[in-house]
């Protein structure tokens, strides 16, 4: 089900960053810039998606991402409906496709989906004509999180190429790590990962990613650390000895950052386990951009919604004709 792609190289959907070019990613980040200002207005709303219906299908718990998408949708003037797994027909055994087809039958325009299975977003995108945006699928991708990470890095460091970014922590369970690796590399940055061996995916060097077994080395090397949460809910047994042990060996602490040859920028996608993967004085310190990440999340999601919503037949050609 293909609609005419928009000029910048986005298709009907945004399911991941793996197949996007650096130019496309840069265009999304550039489009996000003017959207920042809308959230600072007295009336935080523009009518560009007026009359569009967007379903936020969050079949896995999420607070930040769901609210961020909802703000983005509402500030563009769209009508939104939120569906969570509990309290929907999903608990009665309805399949994902049936849920989506029923929504389609009520004439929706876009679906933002969060799902515990890798590939769920693409599966849906291939089966319904609405635009599908992946808000995190299993251990696959979380593209808008990586986009807001990159926008925040660009804001802080003035560029988003030629940087060295190390992702620290639970890489194996992390869709955020995967999306960041694809996106950062497409823009010409170097990416490394750091964490206990049990939490580094086997064969990650095939993605062109280097691995640091010690967090001190990662801090020595990197311009920025993207510190990931230990996803305790996804760990059945045996990934780490204990939380205290993890903090002692891999925790990002003030003392460790003071050894860095430069002002390392600290990102964290949230929610944080303070005192585990990141210490409080780092999370709240001057090098942290954790709250700017949240602010930028709304702008990036507005940009993605805006770009996908316009991808209609004849769009690209007609868009070239400006009127006075």
């Amino acid at each position: 089900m293909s609609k005419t792609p928009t000029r910048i190289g986005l298709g009907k959907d945004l399911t991941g960053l793996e197949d996007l070019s650096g130019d496309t990613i840069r265009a999304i980040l550039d489009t996000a810039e003017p959207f920042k200002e809308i959230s600072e207005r007295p009336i935080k709303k523009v009518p560009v998606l007026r009359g569009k219906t967007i379903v936020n299908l969050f079949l896995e718990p999420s607070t930040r991402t769901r609210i961020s998408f909802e703000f983005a949708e509402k500030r563009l003037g769209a009508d939104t409906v939120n569906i969570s797994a509990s309290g929907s027909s999903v608990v009665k055994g309805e399949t994902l496709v049936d849920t989506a087809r029923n929504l389609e039958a009520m004439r929706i325009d876009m679906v933002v989906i969060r799902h515990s299975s890798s590939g769920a977003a693409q599966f849906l995108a291939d089966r319904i004509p609405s635009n599908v945006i992946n808000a995190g699928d299993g251990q696959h991708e979380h593209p808008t999180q990586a986009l807001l990470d990159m926008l925040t890095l660009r804001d802080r460091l003035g560029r988003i190429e030629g940087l060295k970014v190390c992702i620290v922590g639970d890489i194996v369970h992390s869709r955020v790590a995967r999306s960041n690796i694809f996106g950062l590399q497409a823009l010409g940055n170097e990416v490394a990962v750091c964490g206990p061996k049990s939490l580094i995916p086997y064969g990650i060097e095939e993605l062109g990613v280097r691995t640091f077994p010690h967090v001190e080395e990662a801090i020595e090397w990197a311009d920025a650390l993207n510190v990931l949460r230990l996803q305790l809910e996804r760990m059945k047994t045996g990934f780490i000895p204990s939380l205290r042990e993890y903090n002692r060996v891999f925790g990002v602490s003030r003392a460790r950052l003071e050894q860095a040859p430069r002002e390392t920028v600290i990102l964290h996608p949230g929610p944080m386990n303070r005192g585990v993967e990141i210490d409080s004085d780092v999370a709240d310190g001057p090098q942290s951009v954790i709250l700017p990440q949240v602010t930028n999340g709304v702008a990036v999601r507005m940009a993605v919604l805006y770009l996908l919503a316009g991808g209609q037949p004849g769009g690209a050609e007609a868009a070239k004709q400006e009127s006075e």
Partner: protein
Amino acid sequence: MTAPETTARELLDAEGVEEALARLASKIEDGGTEDLVLIGIRRRGVQLAERLATILSDSHGKVVPTGSLDITLYRDDFHQVGPRPVIGVTDIPDKITGRRVVVVDDVLFTGRTIRAALNELADFGRPRCVELAVLVDRGGRELPIQADHVGISVETTDRDQVEVKVPELDGSLSVILVSSPGE
């Protein structure tokens, strides 16, 4: 089929634009400059608003505040023509409520841009009054919108294009009428 020949005619040279802006400034001045704010519409309205503000400031010794408006997200044809990934930043001075706002644009044609601008402006506050100043009025209105202050008026057809050039974006200051003949 022969290639249509387009002709370009200069309606105003740099001096002509300066004169037209001076006339516009003087008309705007007649309404008082006490609580005046000039808001340019992206892109070329912004440069024209800056020029008008400079003229007004020079004659009064008082800075006239300016702002810029990008109407992309308020267009009425978004769903027909697809997105324009490049959106400019809107920058409105702190308070427009209770002030006299003069919206500045380069060319007035269908009036749809101004419709969008008025809607967007209303989301920033409630001005005492809103007026419209344009460098060129080329006719062809599709909405009941008229300018309060006009630099020059020209008769045009749908096939014509009126191009306003400003040094900041185009390297020169002029108004060009580009005509392509009909079938």
